[in-house]
Structure formats: C-alpha cells, structure tokens
C-alpha cells in the first residue's frame, strides 16, 4: 500500500496530495519527454548524423591513400561531382541501376499482389501452407539466399540449369549465366524478387483482410466485374499500403549491393556495376573515398525523392492513430 501513495507521506498540510501530485506531474511531463528522447537522439546524431555530414564533406575533398594515412582530406570544391557527371561510365551505372530497380520493383509488386489475392481466395489449409512457404523465404538471410542461388545455377551441377535443359528451354549444360550481362542480371533480379515477394504478399494480404466485405459485396451486387471491383474498390482502399511498399522496395532495390557482390564473388565486372557497387569500388578498390562519397551522395539525393512519398504516407497514417 505504501508505494501507492508515495507523495502523500511527506505532505505539508496546505497542499493536498492530489494537487501536489498534479503539479509535479505537470512539471515532470514538460521536461520528461525531452529527457526520455535525449539518449536516443544523441546516439542517432552520432551514428547517423555525423557520418552523413562527413560524407558531404568527403564529397568535396580529395581523399586518397595519402589523405587516409593523414586522416585529413584536401578540399577541392565540386571537382568530384564535375568528374562523375562528365564520366560516361557513371551515367551507364545510373541507367543500369534505374533499369534494375524498375524491373525488380514492378515484378515484386505485381507478383506479390497476385499472391496476396490468391491467399485471400484459398481455403484455410492451403493458405496456411502457402503463408508458411512465404515466411521461410522471408526469413532466409540475404547472404544465405545468394549462396543458394549460386548453387542452383552452378556451372556444372546447378539444378536450375539441369531443369531448364530438361524442359527444353535451351541447352544450359555447363552454362555460365554471368558471361552475358542480360542473363546475369536476370538471375540477380530473380533472386531479389524471390526474396522480396513474401514481404509484399503478406502485407498486402493483411491489408486485404481489413477491406470491409460489405463494400466488395455491394459493388459486385451492383454488377461490377471482379477486375472492376479490384480496381475501383480494393486498390483505392489499399493505396496507403501500396505507396509504402513501393517506395520501400525502390529504396531497397536501388541501393542493391550484397546480391551483386556475393553473387559475383566480390569481383563484379563493370557490366554489374550499380550505384552502390560503383561507390564501393571507387572508395575501397581505387582508394578514392572523396569520389566514392560523391557517387553515394548522388544515390542518396535520388532516393530522397522516393522517400518523400513514403514519409508523407507514413505521417498520414500516423495521424490516423
């Protein structure tokens, strides 16, 4: 019982316990949230804010091996940017990254949504089975997934090569997918999409279950075709989810690194350079950290546009609560 009235024990007669407590909690409430936020804010500032600032600085510096030893860059203004913008290879990398992102994100969203719609149509047992399968894929760590796919397309004993040959798609015996960058990218895209589908499918399905049934039924009684119901009733209702999933997918796929890097054993040819790989090889391969930072910052700037839509949607949802 004593812990229940801690303030009341040493109470001067004039101030009632209740008023005192209110006062204290009001003063406490005013500074308490800031005190609670302080540690997290400080850490985020240190581990995220400072590196971001440092990256902007680096992008304006010559920072090679010499400067690395000195721990001090040399200011060169916007020369790094001038160099990448006049570099044909850089624009190839940007276009390649965009192309990959468009392909991977559209495939992920379309297939993920179709699987979500399928889930909504299934009986409980089949739905459980398919969900379980999706969750296993979702849970597979990216590095593990890359290793599995590398094994499935192994030059000699890849099961996928065997299957495609068996199905007469072509002769894939002793086939190296990465000689031709188009087939190489097809493999990487397949791997990325395969890994990303479960998140989209399960999230969209969760959204579908929240769509009021009466709305769908009302629309179909009015004679609307299934596709029309989907387009005019379901999609508008799920729009927030689609906005969130699409922008997240764009952000993830645009900065793709691990899948490319591990798939090609840490030595991707220039045909496999995407922005994060290009920034990485310029920094850690060529020891041009300033140039690498400039490339990375261009990537951040491009994604900032996408983030805007995401953040706006998230804030909207946040207000609903």
């Amino acid at each position: 019982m004593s812990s229940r009235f801690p303030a009341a024990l040493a109470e001067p007669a004039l101030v009632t316990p209740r008023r005192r407590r209110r006062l204290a909690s009001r003063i406490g409430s005013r500074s308490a949230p800031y005190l609670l936020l302080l540690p997290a804010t400080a850490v985020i500032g240190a581990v995220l804010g400072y590196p971001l600032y440092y990256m902007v600085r680096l992008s304006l510096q010559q920072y090679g091996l010499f400067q690395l030893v000195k721990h001090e860059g040399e200011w060169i203004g916007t020369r790094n940017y001038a160099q990448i913008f006049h570099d044909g290879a850089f624009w190839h990398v940007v276009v390649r990254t965009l192309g990959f992102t468009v392909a991977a994100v559209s495939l992920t969203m379309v297939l993920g949504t179709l699987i979500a719609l399928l889930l909504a149509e299934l009986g409980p047992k089949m739905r459980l089975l398919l969900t379980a399968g999706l969750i296993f894929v979702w849970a597979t760590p990216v590095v593990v997934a890359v290793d599995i796919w590398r094994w499935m397309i192994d030059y000699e004993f890849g099961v996928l090569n065997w299957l495609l040959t068996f199905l007469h798609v072509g002769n894939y015996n002793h086939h190296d997918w990465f000689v031709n960058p188009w087939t190489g990218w097809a493999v990487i895209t397949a791997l990325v999409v395969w890994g990303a589908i479960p998140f989209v499918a399960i999230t969209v399905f969760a959204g579908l279950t929240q769509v009021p049934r009466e709305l769908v039924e009302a629309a179909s009684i009015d004679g609307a075709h299934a596709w029309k119901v989907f387009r005019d009733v379901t999609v508008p209702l799920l729009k927030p989810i689609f906005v969130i999933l699409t922008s997240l997918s764009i952000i993830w796929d645009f900065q793709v690194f691990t899948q490319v890097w591990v798939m090609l054993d840490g030595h991707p040819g220039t045909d496999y350079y995407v922005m994060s790989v290009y920034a990485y090889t310029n920094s850690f391969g060529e020891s041009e950290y300033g140039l690498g930072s400039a490339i990375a910052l261009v990537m951040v700037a491009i994604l900032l546009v996408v983030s805007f839509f995401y953040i706006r949607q998230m804030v909207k949802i946040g207000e609903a609560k």
Partner: protein
Amino acid sequence: MSSGIQVAPVPVAPAPDPRGEVPRRSRRRFARRAGLNVVAAIVFLVMIFPVYWMVATGFKRGQDIFSDPPVWFPYHPTLANFADAIHRAHFWADVKNSLIIVGGVVALSLVLAFLAALALAKFGFYGRRAFIVLIIAVQMIPLNALIIPIFLVLSKANQVDKLSGVIVTYLTFVLPFTIWTLRGFMLGVPKDLEEASMVDGTTRFGAFVRILLPLVGPGLVATSIFAFIQAWNEFIMAYVLLHSPEKQTLTLWLATFSTSRGTAWGSLMAGATLTALPVVIFFVAIQRKIAFGLTAGAVRG
C-alpha cells in the same frame, strides 16, 4: 502463374442465377477452387524450392550433391557436411562474434528505444511530430551509401576490425527501427487503463511498472527479436569493418567456403542452414506481429 488468379481477384458473390441451376454452379465453384489450389501449390513449390534445396544439399552425400541428373531427395542422409562446416576454421569464434554483436546491438537499442518510444507514445509535447518524421526519414537513408564515411570515421577512432565498432555501426539501422516499432506497440496500450490507475493514486512510474510494462512486454520481445534478425543478417558493414577471420561474423564466414579451387557446396549449404536456422525460428515466432505492425491503421474502410 498469373492467369489463374486474375480471373477473380476478390471474393465475388455468384451472379443471381435461377434456383434450379445449383449443381452446375457448385461444379463450377469446385473447379475454380481446385484450380486455385493447383496454382497455390505451384507458387508454394517455386517459392520454397531454393530453401528446400539448401537443406536437402546439406544432408546429401557427396556423390548425390554432384550428380547429373540431380538427386531430388537426400535418400542417404548424412551429417558429414554439418560436421565439416562446424569444424571449419573460425566457426565457433564467428558464432561468438555474431552473438556478441547482436547482443550488444539489441540491448543498447532496446534501452534507448524504450525511453524514446515512451516519450513519443505517452506524452504530448512540442516537437513530437518533428521527431516522428525524423525517425521515419532516417530509416530511408540508403545505408549502403553510408559505408564510406562510417569506415573513415571509425578508422580515425581506431574502431576498425573491432566488434565494438560494428555494434555502433549497427545502431544506425536498428535503433530508428526499434523506436518506431516500440512506439507502435505502446500506442496499442489503451490510455484509459493508465489514467484509471493514476486516478486511483498510482504515480506515473507505478502506472508504468504495473500497467504498461506487462502490456508492452510481448511488443518488447517481438521488437528485440526483429532487431536480432537484422543485426544477425547484416553483411556489408561487417564486410568492410572486420578483416581478421577470427573477428568476423557468420555471414562473412559463409564466404570462406568459396575458394579459387571451387566451392564446397555440401558444407556451404550445411553452414548456410545453420546460419539461417536461428533467424527462421525467431521469425516464425513473431511474424504475425510484423505484418500487423506495418498495416495497423493503414486501411480505413
């Protein structure tokens, strides 16, 4: 794969038929259901196959792994690949490193995030909205771009090739996410409950310990598991920051199976299975909460 589904994307009541046609309708229904089940089975097989192939390869004998045509099932199961993986150099050291890093990251971010989430979910104050936007925004920063400055800053601070440097680095993505998720769980606790107990005379701290904590407990567990998974799976940061083989994490250890002389696929798949195992177990345990956390409040009918 797509054609079967597009036919009827949403549950649709059958068109108003005259009563006498029930048998034909139900036959059509049955055919439709069967068709959907076949499509679902195919999707399931396509999706799960890579995971199955990893586990199956891990349990196969050498001649069954390197076989043309492929052996579809480990008819002669063996643990040799797993033994080989475990006895490989630095396995246990790298398991330990992974656990230290993950443990440090989860503990630190949970404490920091708990305080912050408490402020965001339970207090109204000036700047709250700005902070929420900030937390959402920082999660959008492409981390692969941040490797360069993080590496240089840490090398200045003499933290490269040290687990502590990796722990600090992982906070960049685990902490904002953890704050956001925990805030969501705390919002789920009805305010009336707390207020009721405070009217009864409990202090804010008392209300917190007796009311909020038990209710947020499951959310805390789910959040820490999710933080665990993220830190356990991370690759690039560790790849850039940890150089000595005895200081690496499990995801880096997997790269040691591929040498210039080829790849030990059997052991690699066994090692991959072992690396994925804790994640899969935890993931299955909390997956409902993840899907919920993202969509809650997103659809307004």
